């Protein structure tokens, strides 16, 4: 492989150029010699930056905060639900809803529900 590429590189030189031979021989020896690892890889891995991770004390605090937010949302939900329901009723009163529109709405809701369930249930 080496000599093939070398020949391409050396197209501008005389084939029996003695320096070319010296360089080729040196390159062959260089390619054949393998430097033993001798702990080099371990030293590199040791110096890699630490992975970004939350400190252990921040995790329970974050969980507690999100739980608080969830409780607040749940407490406020009945009022919101009523508002949303009134809005929908106001929107649709006086309008004719066809069966096809209703079916489309149901299909969309079903699709969204299944997608949400799939996303929540997948492991990765």
């Amino acid at each position, binding site marked *: 492989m*080496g000599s093939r590429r070398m020949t391409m*590189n050396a197209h501008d030189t005389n084939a029996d150029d003695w320096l070319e031979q010296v360089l080729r021989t040196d390159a062959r020896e260089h390619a054949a010699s*393998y*430097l033993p*690892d001798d702990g080099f890889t371990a*030293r590199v891995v040791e110096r890699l930056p630490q992975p970004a991770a939350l400190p252990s004390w921040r995790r329970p605090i974050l969980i507690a905060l999100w739980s608080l937010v969830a409780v607040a949302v749940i407490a406020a939900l009945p009022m919101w639900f009523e508002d949303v329901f009134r809005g929908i009723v106001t929107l649709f009163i006086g309008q004719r809803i066809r069966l096809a529109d209703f079916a489309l709405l149901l299909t969309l809701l079903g699709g969204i529900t299944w997608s949400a369930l799939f996303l929540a249930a997948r492991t990765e």
Partner: protein
Amino acid sequence: MSPPAVSDAQLIARVLVQDDRHAFSELVRRHQSTVRACLRKLTAGNAALADDLAQETFLLAYRNLKSFRQESKFSTWLYRIAYNAFLADARKMKESPLPDDADLDTLVPEDEQDAKPVARAASLKVDLERAMATLSDAERAAIIQCYHNDLSHEEAAVVLGCPVGTVKTHVLRAKQKLKARLGAWAPAA
């Protein structure tokens, strides 16, 4: 040698997606020899400096792995980082003295007539290394990429960050200088 079961590209993907340090250590293990050897040539045989630069090369590779577009081989990308690390270090150490040129004007084979072939080859190797040390950084790098790392002129141009024509010029000049330095080794016409 059979190709490894897991390709470089797969290992790189694992590092990028899962921050898999084991995968990165495998990449280092695979390429450490060629990168360190290349840097030893660039630093004219300074093994300690070459290993420091090789460590720096792999750390930079880890930090910038996202920018590796897989347009070239991973090893070529590593050579480029290694060469840039070498250049940055060379700029810092510019004031440090170069090898004594007085001894290197023309390297003469020792006891050429009596030397056995093995001793003669070893002696030529030493003289070649000393002659390589007298080349400019760019000339030495061009020779190393084209001969020792077995890159085409085009690939070497990518590694060295210069046009192909410049690589060819560096190789030509380097060979002219080496010829002059090692003239005594040339076979009689």
